């Protein structure tokens, strides 16, 4: 396995990078982060129709390009570098990933083409009130058993109805949950935790936007009140699906974060060269220079581990993926956060203003560190998996 990209992959990176230069300048990021839905439908359409990004990793039979996670990782890195405001993680990674992982060819055939073409925005609702997924204990994010207040069978229940099922209960921290047209949601049926599909405008569905720290990535709580739902796969299938999708989400977020870390390093270095104090550029002082050097080490390490995780995801071995995903999520989560924090420190006062973009990256970094399991949590999973 080589950690170096092919000419075609480098070409993809250049294409996406130049697209995002005009699609996601800071002015657009600021405009969209102040909006409710937090994305630009025209850009979203272009991403699908001109670049085919939403279906890059989807097999051709569903309208995708048939590439894998290495290519998707490249795209995510560039998106993270530009703080692209779009439901890409929710739709292309979580919802698409869930459909690709579940054993339901009919659902894939019916639902994937819409996600790939960008006409449908999807998301995945899996988390209880603390953000941990149900079922806790199946290996995904939570080793804590399913008997606590949030765990067990009390979170979200599915009842058989005349045709299909109805859902009752609440799912929390749903990425782009207020926006999604297609909500894939885990709920407890008689046969165990199961995956369901619910349209965004379904009867009895209440969507509450959450006051997010990172305004560039929207979240919502979804409450289902006898909401009709379609079973995807069989009853009891959802546990392994969620495990797999969350591993892929960690890989995706690690690559996105590596891109963000790259940008904050560039910002810090530029400022350290331009900012004059005591009659010289502050980057000539070792206290500042050495902080930049440590950021570079963090960025290079982040790239290495994120690229590796994407390769493992592309290769498809689930045991190795569990390891690589947790390693990448734990390392890059901390590395991006510390680089984004260092960027504010190197900028000094201007870095603490609303006007400067340093805080946008800082907030994305902290959010990314905490989503899908924080570094301590993933080190715990690794320890279990490495049997220490």
């Amino acid at each position, binding site marked *: 396995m*080589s*950690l*170096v990209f092919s000419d075609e992959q480098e070409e993809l990176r250049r294409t996406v990078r130049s697209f995002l230069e005009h699609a996601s300048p800071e002015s657009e990021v600021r405009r969209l982060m102040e909006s409710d839905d937090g994305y630009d439908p025209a850009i979203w359409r272009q991403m699908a129709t001109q670049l085919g990004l939403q279906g890059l990793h989807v097999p051709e039979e569903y309208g995708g390009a048939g590439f894998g996670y290495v290519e998707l990782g490249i795209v995510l890195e560039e998106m993270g570098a530009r703080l692209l405001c779009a439901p890409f993680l929710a739709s292309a990674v979580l919802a698409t990933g869930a459909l690709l992982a579940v054993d339901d060819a009919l659902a894939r055939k019916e639902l994937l083409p819409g996600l790939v073409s960008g006409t449908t925005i999807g998301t995945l609702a899996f988390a209880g009130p603390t953000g941990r997924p149900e079922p806790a204990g199946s290996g995904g994010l939570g080793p804590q058993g399913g008997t606590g207040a949030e765990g067990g069978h009390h979170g979200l229940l599915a009842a058989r109805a005349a045709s299909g099922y109805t859902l009752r209960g609440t799912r929390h921290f749903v990425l782009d949950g207020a926006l999604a047209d297609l909500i894939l949601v885990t709920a407890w049926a008689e046969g165990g935790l199961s995956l369901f599909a619910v349209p965004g405008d379904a009867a009895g569905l209440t969507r509450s936007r959450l006051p997010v720290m990172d305004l560039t990535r929207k979240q919502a709580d979804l409450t289902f009140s006898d909401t009709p739902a379609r079973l995807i796969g069989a009853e009891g299938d959802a546990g392994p699906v969620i495990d797999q999708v969350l591993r892929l989400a960690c890989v995706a977020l690690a690559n996105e974060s590596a891109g963000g870390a790259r940008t904050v*390093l560039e910002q810090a*270095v530029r400022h*350290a*060269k331009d900012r004059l104090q005591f009659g*010289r*550029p502050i*980057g*000539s*002082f*070792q206290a*500042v*220079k*050495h902080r*930049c*050097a*440590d950021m*570079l*080490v963090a960025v*290079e*390490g982040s*790239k*290495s*581990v994120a*690229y*590796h995780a994407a390769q493992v995801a592309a290769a498809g071995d689930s045991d190795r993926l569990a390891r690589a995903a947790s*390693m990448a999520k*734990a*390392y890059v989560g901390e590395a991006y956060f510390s680089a984004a924090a260092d960027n504010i420190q190197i900028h000094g006062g201007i870095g603490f203003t609303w006007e400067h973009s340093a805080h946008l990256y800082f907030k994305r970094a902290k959010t990314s560190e905490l989503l899908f399991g924080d570094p*301590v949590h993933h*080190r*715990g999973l*690794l*320890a279990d998996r*490495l049997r*220490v």
Partner: protein
Amino acid sequence: MSRTVTAAGLTTLVDDLLRSHPPAATDPHEFLGARFDAGLAWVWAGPGDGGLGADPALQPLIEQRLAAAGAPAPFRYNPIGIGMTGPTLLTHGTPEQRGAYLRPLFAGTEIWSQLFSEPGAGSDVAGLATRARRDGDEWIVDGQKVWTSYAHIARRGLLIARTDPDVPKHAGLTAFVVDLTAPGVEVRPLRQLTGEAEFNEVFFTAARIPDTQRLGPVGAGWRVATTTLMNERVSLGGGLSGGVDPGAALLAAYQEAADRGDGNPVRRDQAIRLWIEANVNALTAARAAAGGNRGRPGPEGSVLKLAGAEHSRRAAAYLVDLMGPAGTLIPDYRMTRPGLPLGGGGPRDTAAAFLRSRANTIEGGTSEILRNILGERVLGLPGDIRVDKDVSWRDIPR
């Protein structure tokens, strides 16, 4: 011969070598000499220099195939020669010098050392004071070098000496190949805080070096030294990683502690954090090796050296902490001197390794100097104010 050498062609050459010189039945020095003659030492080098003029990206293929067949690893027989002075000779040596030195270097029959650091020139190695004065076709050398690995068993050394004290410090240096067995060269052990003497002091007293052993032009010593130092950082950084699981020892040590009742969630988390660091550094090393241009290493060597040294120091401290009171004991402080090939003595005692790890962030460029290099050469940040710039070396305070 050209860059048309293919992977398949190389595989055939490696297999021919293994057939004509079965590693199990061949003296390692003889094997390495035959490998050099086959152009499989460093494939990007020219024919006659141990190479085939091939794409450097093909080198890992050779290393993997030879390692799988149990062939001797040249680095173990001549670490400084393979890691540092060999690549420097390839870059700066004349055809005569390359012809005289490279084959015995690669075969490990002539061990090499590097003679850069001095008591008064550590991080500021360009300020070194060892003098070389021209005398007809020879140079006469006086001065003292320090931290010289393997000088007690080395035949040759790469020496940087001051040939012109009246120009700024970088401009007055010249590189030489020195015969460490020549008259006027004295090697003494330098005992370190571990009790061992891995390194030496080397004293030059009117030692004579023929001008034919000058490496590069007079006054170009800094350029030669830079090639060596960049290779050193790759060598040290890369050497700290490798293997199937570079963090396995950390996990095993924690498990042992847990088995005797000393496990706890904090130490467990620390073990995994260090395990991740070790693996991330190994991945960065793999990325640098795959993307880099061998023989002319880029700045990623400095990233690796810094990250690897800081990690190994943290890991060594963690391992001794895990031992509790047993970590206060050390087998002995005998003054031993290392021999070659490497890897004969087994792993160091944990407490001894903890002591040794303090050198990781000093040797081959301190972590502070490496951060300067990353900041200035990689990130392009401006240099610090230099009071010794544009001043002749003679006038710099020391």
